[in-house]
């Protein structure tokens, strides 16, 4: 699924890239275009070949066939590969990989060579919010600081493309969100073309302009985050991108599908199926409203019973069983979430996604 957009020329392009370790194939024909100045997340489960994809772009691995183009230049065509040091890429690996024997200033200035004057280095450190830490050793920094130094070091060489390999997975949850936001802002400010590899769908959806899904060694979807979340290509991807209720449904006329939650309106991009055919319907937990009977407005809804409730403060997730026995996840925001054991009425907001039933 490729989305037509008004994107400018792509800074990085992969065509039919095939790579394997020994006899084990890892990339089986990757096609990907990264628009200039965008942040593109490559999202995939572990073992899907995400890191290999980055290593191919960086030039640490040579491809067997296909083509990798950086800027206007083909850097690997399966026969000849440009070495990493001549690709102008900024590579930020998982744990930062700072040079442990060099101080922060020397780490940041590593790629600058003779141009590494003190001002250039301190400007970069200011950019990542670490002014004054020039004389520290990496082991004297926190995980988040190390990650930002690694970013400054990568940006120092003014790379054509910045590659981030699961850059936040080593940070603890509390720090991850803020470092993530800072890094995204820095990259946007610089207008750096960025590829971010991750297995964390929150990270992919929240940080990037585009999300590409890597599965079985190829890119199976590539779109803006909100499009991908709303219209995933199949049920697997729907659950991979977030919590999902998958319900059986029957297609009725006029873009309507009938389910255990009543008659729901199909959205654009959903299945075009014959009248009466069986489909799988995706209803996200936040699309469902649950109200206790006496608080419910007139017009009713489907009745259900709250089994239990996981309360998160900003919202809560209910496990609800409908009268027909379908289990559902329902996300409730704001005050007044129904308590466990309550009887509720369920209504669905907005349109829903559906695919032909897989046998």
């Amino acid at each position, binding site marked *: 699924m490729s989305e037509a957009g008004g994107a400018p020329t792509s800074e990085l392009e992969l065509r039919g890239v095939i790579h394997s*370790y*020994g006899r*084990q194939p890892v990339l089986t024909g990757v096609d990907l275009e990264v628009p200039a100045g965008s942040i593109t997340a490559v999202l995939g489960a*572990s*073992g899907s070949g995400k*890191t290999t994809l980055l290593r191919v772009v*960086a*030039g*640490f691995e040579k491809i067997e066939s296909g083509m990798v183009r950086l800027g206007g230049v083909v850097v690997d065509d399966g026969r000849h590969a440009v*070495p*990493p*040091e*001549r*690709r*102008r*890429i*900024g*590579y930020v*690996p*998982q744990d930062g*990989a700072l*040079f*442990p*024997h060099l101080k922060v200033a020397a780490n940041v200035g*590593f*790629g600058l*060579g003779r141009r590494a004057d003190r001002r250039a280095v301190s400007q970069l450190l200011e950019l990542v919010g670490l002014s004054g830490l020039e004389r520290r*050793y*990496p*082991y004297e920094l926190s995980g988040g600081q190390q990650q930002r130094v690694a970013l400054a*070091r*990568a940006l*120092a*060489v003014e790379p054509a493309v910045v590659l981030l390999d*699961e850059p936040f*997975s080593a940070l603890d949850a509390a720090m991850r969100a803020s470092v993530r936001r800072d890094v995204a802002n820095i990259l946007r400010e610089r207008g750096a073309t960025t590829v971010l590899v991750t297995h964390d769908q929150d990270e992919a959806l929240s940080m990037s302009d585009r999300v590409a899904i890597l599965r079985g060694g190829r890119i199976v979807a590539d779109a803006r985050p909100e499009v991908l979340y709303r219209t995933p290509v199949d049920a697997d991807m729907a659950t991979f991108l977030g919590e999902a209720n998958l319900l059986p449904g029957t297609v009725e006329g006029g873009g309507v599908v009938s389910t255990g939650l009543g008659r729901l309106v199909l959205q654009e991009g959903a299945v075009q199926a014959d009248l009466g055919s069986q489909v799988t319907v995706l209803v996200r937990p936040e699309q469902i409203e649950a109200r206790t009977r006496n608080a419910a407005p007139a017009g009713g809804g489907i009745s259900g019973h709250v089994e239990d409730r996981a309360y998160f403060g900003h919202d809560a997730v209910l496990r609800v069983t409908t009268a027909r026995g379908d289990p559902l996840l329902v996300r409730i925001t704001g005050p007044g979430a129904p308590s466990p054991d309550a009887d509720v009425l369920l209504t669905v907001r907005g349109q829903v996604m559906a695919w032909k039933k897989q046998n």
Partner: protein
Amino acid sequence: MALATPTLRRSRRRAPRVLAVISTLVAAALLVPLVFLVLEAAHSGWDSVMHLLLRRLTRVLLVNTVELAAAVSAACAVLGTGAAWVIERTSVPGRRVWAVLVVLPVAIPDFVVGYSWHSIAPSVQGLPGATLVMSLALYPLVYLPVAAALRRADPAEEEVARSLGLGPLRTFMSVTLRQVRPAISGGCLVVCLALLAEYGAFEIVRFQTFTTTIFAQLKLGFDPAGASGLSIVLVLIGMAVLAGEAGVSTRGRLARSAGQAAPMPARRRLRPLHAAGSSLSMAVLAAAGLGVPIGTLVYWMAASHATTLPGGSIWSALAHTAGYSAAAALIATVLALPVALLSVRFRSPAAIVLERSTYVVQSLPGIVVALALVYFATHYAYGLYHSAPLLVAAYAVLFFPLALISVRTSVAQAPRQLEEVGRSLGRAPLSVMARVTLPLVAPGLAAGFCLVFLSAVTELTATLLLVPTGVSTLATQFWAYQSATSYGAAAPYAVAIVALAAVPGYLLTTWFDRRPGFNP
């Protein structure tokens, strides 16, 4: 999962051929002594070798060895564990001083310890004498791993035991001791390997073991068949011990949740009487292990002052010892680099076998390596017999595992990923090598050099058999005077050995510890 993938990926990558070829050659060179040992035995005929092995003598030697190993291991376990517990887990007064003093005996060659006790108390001999001398010389080999294990052990386990109603003594017996048991048994196995290889100290206290018998058969009886037969037995025992050690080190992992810094275990507050008792026992240990050897050396230096001043020859002996040791240290360290790179970066089954096979050398006593090289020289290269290259080769083979351990540790500090980052920042491979890899590996190379140098300086057995004609080293001169009971004349040479070995020892303990960024 994020942790598992890099290892997998590394194992799939193929090692450069040069690296594999060099490493294979190094491993082959290290195992050559074993080949010559078997060749020599075959040369004299297996029948006669078997006949020699079934003599009463072999049984006597076996019994002696087992008795000594049992006695010394037990003594070292008690002394080493006790000292480690007092120093790491109690508030004994002056514990920082004791922590240094109880380790220092490791720097004094065993034959010097034997010499010091026997020269002031000739009754120190036989099995009791050998046990006393070797226990005092070797207990730091148990103390060091046990102290480290006590620092690492999770205090929560002890706290849980106390909360479940166990008293301090039962907690120590059932929890603490179990936590450090792998360290104790590992240390004791290293002690056993050292006992199998020792020659000088046993010769001095007149205790007959495999090494002393092999030496006598070579030098006096000139019985190479008997010597090689006994050597094969000695090597087999050594390999059994080494196999036991490998078993301990893989089984004895201490479980603890990853990524958490260990909280410091609480120290036991000692009551004044207990504190005095603990201090006294530390003082006795330090006096016996360190005070006696040093005191004796000082005494003999002073007593001999008038008669045997160290003449000009001590300086030439010092120069020879330093020269041979430095050459061996350089060779061993340089050759350890490809093996370490192969085993860390390309962890294929073949690479692991290759690495392990080089550690087998640890079970080869100096006398066995020397014997094999003598056989090689007399049969294939007579020009090398009693030449400097052969002695240097013996040192390099004997102490290669020490070099490999240090170099391997620092190669692991310089992961491939850092080189990749360096290249992505626009640096050519050679520049990355000079600015990233070498600075990270250099401390390990230096540490490996120091360890091999220190060990070669204090080596006696192989030196006596292989020393170049017309040359004397510190060890051979010391031995010549000591054998003639000229204790006063021998003392300066022992002092020179300890002093020369102290230089790299000092560097190892101070300089490398303070390098920033290398603390695991």
